[in-house]
């Protein structure tokens, strides 16, 4: 089941085509990485999903029905460029934002107090926003994004401005939201975090999806038939068949690790077979899939 279905969405600004017939499905209950170079159309797409901008043509379906204004109460959005009213009290601010998302004043206050306790930031409740550090404000914004318990969340560069400890907390929170059944779109340039928490990705460039699917499947698509094999003792690589190219060799006291690229579609088992015949003891063997970083560069570069 898809929570979001984007069908042939086009959006044009005065002199540039931001989205060019973009089509994409986002399955329910997963963390979905939305990737793409700067200016690819990610922000425009997100603004269409959050009902801020309307597409020129094409349609967006949310839970199977065309997306409408009321749906925003079921969407949580943390924009990349985010701020707060500096002069307002933290409590007034978050209650206000929660009420705009459809919660009553009492319900908003109750849930927010719970969240503040969870994060151990009760003492901020009555402070003014301008007294808080940037990282503290980010936490407040995160809470304001999720307090109305939406089943669809969009985080645009959520980790920017967080120290590693807080970034980890945030990561755990996002994973927890997924466990509770929410669908999360994560738009980021931080490929390490994509690999860590995303289940699926879509790569957008020039207003189109150029690559999407389950993350390891996508990486496999960009496989370079690169394997890493570790054997006991030393190894003489000069007599390997020509389809097995040694890219890297690392040797320590009693082990040797090789990065080998297999050419011409030769099955990897032949490599193992060859090494076994040579009386080598294999301690590890696995394929090296390209990192998301490499996938990104390769896909966008083409």
């Amino acid at each position, binding site marked *: 089941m898809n929570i979001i279905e984007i069908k042939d969405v086009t959006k044009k600004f005065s002199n540039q085509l931001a989205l060019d017939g973009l089509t994409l499905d986002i399955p329910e209950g997963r963390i979905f990485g939305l990737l793409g170079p700067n200016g690819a159309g990610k922000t425009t797409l997100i603004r269409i999903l959050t009902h801020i901008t309307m597409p020129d043509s094409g349609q967006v379906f949310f839970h199977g029905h065309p997306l409408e204004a009321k749906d925003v109460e079921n969407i949580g959005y943390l924009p990349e460029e985010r701020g707060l009213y500096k002069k307002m009290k933290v409590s007034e601010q978050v209650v206000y934002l929660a009420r*705009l998302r459809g919660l009553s004043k009492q319900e908003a206050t109750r849930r927010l107090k719970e969240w503040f306790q969870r994060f151990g930031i009760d003492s901020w409740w009555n402070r003014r926003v301008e007294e808080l550090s940037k990282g503290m404000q980010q936490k407040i914004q995160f809470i304001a994004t999720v307090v109305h318990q939406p089943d669809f969340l969009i985080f645009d560069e959520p980790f920017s401005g967080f120290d590693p400890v807080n970034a980890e907390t945030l990561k755990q929170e996002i994973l927890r939201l997924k466990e509770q059944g929410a669908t999360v779109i994560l738009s980021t340039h931080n490929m390490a975090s994509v690999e860590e928490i995303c289940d699926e990705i879509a790569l957008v460039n020039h207003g189109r999806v150029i690559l999407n699917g389950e993350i390891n499947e996508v990486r496999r698509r960009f496989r370079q038939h690169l394997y890493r094999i570790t054997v006991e003792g030393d190894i003489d690589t000069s007599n390997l068949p020509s389809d097995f190219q040694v890219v890297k060799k690392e040797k320590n006291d009693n082990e040797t690790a090789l990065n080998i690229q297999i050419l011409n579609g030769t099955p990897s088992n032949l490599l193992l077979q060859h090494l076994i015949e040579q009386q080598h003891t294999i301690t590890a063997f696995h394929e090296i899939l390209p990192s998301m970083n490499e996938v990104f560069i390769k896909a966008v570069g083409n």
Partner: protein
Amino acid sequence: MSKIPIIIEREFFSRVKKKSFIITTLLMPLMLIALIVIPVYIAQKTDKECTVFVLDENDYFINKFENTEKVRFEYPSGEIESLKKRCIDGECDAVLHILSGSQSNQANLYYHEEPPLSLEGRVTDQMDKILFDRTLMDTFHIDLKKYEIIKQTSQSSVAAVQIDADGQERASMMILNRIVGLICGVLIYFFVFMYANQVMRSSIEEKANRIVEIIISSVKPFEFMMGKIIGVALVGILQFAMQIALAVVLLFGVQFLLPAIFSETTVAGPDVASATAAAETMQIQNGSLFSDISAFYSFPFTTLIICFFIYFLFGYLIYASLFAGLGSATDNETDSNQFVLPVSLPLILTIMIISMEASAQSTLVKWLSIIPFTSPIAMLYRIPSGVPLWELLLSIALLVGTFILCVWLSAKIYRTGLLMYGKKVTWKELWRWVRM
């Protein structure tokens, strides 16, 4: 459910709770009262009794000046230089030196320490009177007493009476009408700008804060803009009401605590009034104008108050919606100036025109009172002198229509402008957003 009330609530309370709101609300009436009371008070404080030495080269004026409570004239003998020296020594407050021969109607008033402002007027008045008396005597062989009788018996009294469409008559005071009209016009101008500007500043601030994207992912930009405009309008109405109430209380309080000021002003009216402009207002209130009670009561108060409210509200709504749109198009206040001036020009020009125009009912003012952008000021200026009902209704209808148009235009600009950063926007670009 519409989220406008939630936005109104925030916009209203975040402003009302601010210290600056309380300070301006209190300060404005205080300043207004101070502006009226202090000059009068000072004028009276410094209005001590003066001694003037008179030196007349022709000896004509000797003993002709009348001593009053405030000025005592003395006629010592001696040269002007010695009298000046005595003035410096503090024997008198001023020396009046009336020149000789053909310049006998000219004089210099020498002083060392500055005398009360009113002294010069008092001396001139007396000299005028003496000279007038002499001319009457020399030319017509009558004295001042006879002249007063002639003057009184030949004085006419013309009362201005306005007839309205139903044939109803009402006594009217043309000057009073124009002053009230002008004050209302200026007040409208002031309030419209003050509050419309708040809307603009807050739009710019939200954009600069980057909170705007979070908010418009929850509410429609139109709801956000309307909530803000209405919220600030409520602040304006509250502040205005509080200021009026406070001013009234203060005025009564001052009158109660310092009755001396007011009663004396009435007595010493003409003299003090010539001293300062503010005191002049006092004279108008206490003296000549309000004395015509019938004119005061037949004044179209109800119409004026209702219209003041309507024109204030819609004038504000028009400019606030325009300012919201323009504010959303810019990232900072400096950039917004290029849009503010052309938009506010009609109001500024109207103020200039009505303060110069000879008649409240001239064709130009009539047109200005119908054209929506200028009507909040021009119509208020006209109302005390009477306006045909159809003109009033036409003007209000146009005003409301323009408000709807402005909101529509601004909402389009607002929607696009809010998320547009780092670009200096031109009028041409705004127009493209509107057509989008």
